[in-house]
């Protein structure tokens, strides 16, 4: 992103570095997905295990995960939209 004219490029160079960048992206995607999913699934499981009052509505604040979530945001998706699960998304 520099403002200096680049040197002319001649085809595919440094294939090891480029493959490493792709591998880095793939590993980061897998690792971050695992980390995010683990945190959310763990907090959701903890919410499911916790005793809920009989009158507690779905997505009640006490069921939310530690890092907030759609249901707590002011601009959450419209409530008319059907949810695929009754479990609250942690975020």
């Amino acid at each position: 992103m520099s403002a200096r004219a680049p040197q002319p490029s001649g085809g595919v160079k440094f294939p090891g570095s480029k493959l490493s960048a792709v591998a880095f992206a793939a590993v980061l995607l897998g690792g971050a997905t695992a980390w995010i999913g683990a945190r959310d699934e763990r907090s959701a499981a903890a919410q499911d295990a916790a005793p809920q009052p009989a009158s507690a509505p779905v997505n009640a604040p006490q069921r939310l995960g530690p890092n907030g979530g759609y249901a707590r945001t002011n601009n959450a998706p419209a409530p008319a939209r059907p949810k695929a699960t009754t479990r609250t998304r942690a975020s």
Partner: protein
Amino acid sequence: MNARVPELVRIIAPVLAVIIAGTIVTRLAMPAGAPPFSDTLGSVHRWWYLGRASGFVAYALLVGSMVLGIAISSRVFDGLLVRPWVFEMHQFLSLFVLVAMAFHALILLPDPYAHFNLVELLAPFASPYRPLATALGTIAMYGLVAVAFSYYAKRWLGQAGWRNLHYVSFPLFAGALVHGVTAGADSGSTPVQVWYLASGLAIVFFTFFRILAVRSRSRPAPAGPQPFG
């Protein structure tokens, strides 16, 4: 055949190193009592998880592309990295980040909870989820498409046009960072905050380094001692 073996090793070795190191880091970073990865992949929220994770991937690639791009003119990595490698990787990452950004947006399409449609994901301010924050990301994506392809349109843009378009990448990066902070559901966690802070400061540092390096190069050399008489 024999001559190709070291070349193959040279290509495959760093890739394997990245995979092994990444797997170890992921293992170490896992929260205590984390459910197995199959739970995450089998979850109905997997698209949402992948969308969030791919946002981090796209942002990391953008940071890498920015740092290498600034390094071309500032020569900050001279002596550490060869300049053709810096330029080649900058160009490659500039295009790769576009793929990652498109993946980040489109992977949310099948999410059964958010019910995003294509217009909401690709048009600025159309998303019902944090419209301003998501719009920043969308605008950054389109802007970076223009910057990345400006190299190929340099003949029509001219040197000045190409340079000015490249300067736009700085506010676009800021937009992407603000998008990550304000739209990201993980911005509350400490590792994510540290990453955003460190990467933002790194770009600021390299930018100032570039400004100072170019300014010092353009300054005329001090005159030598004047001969007497």
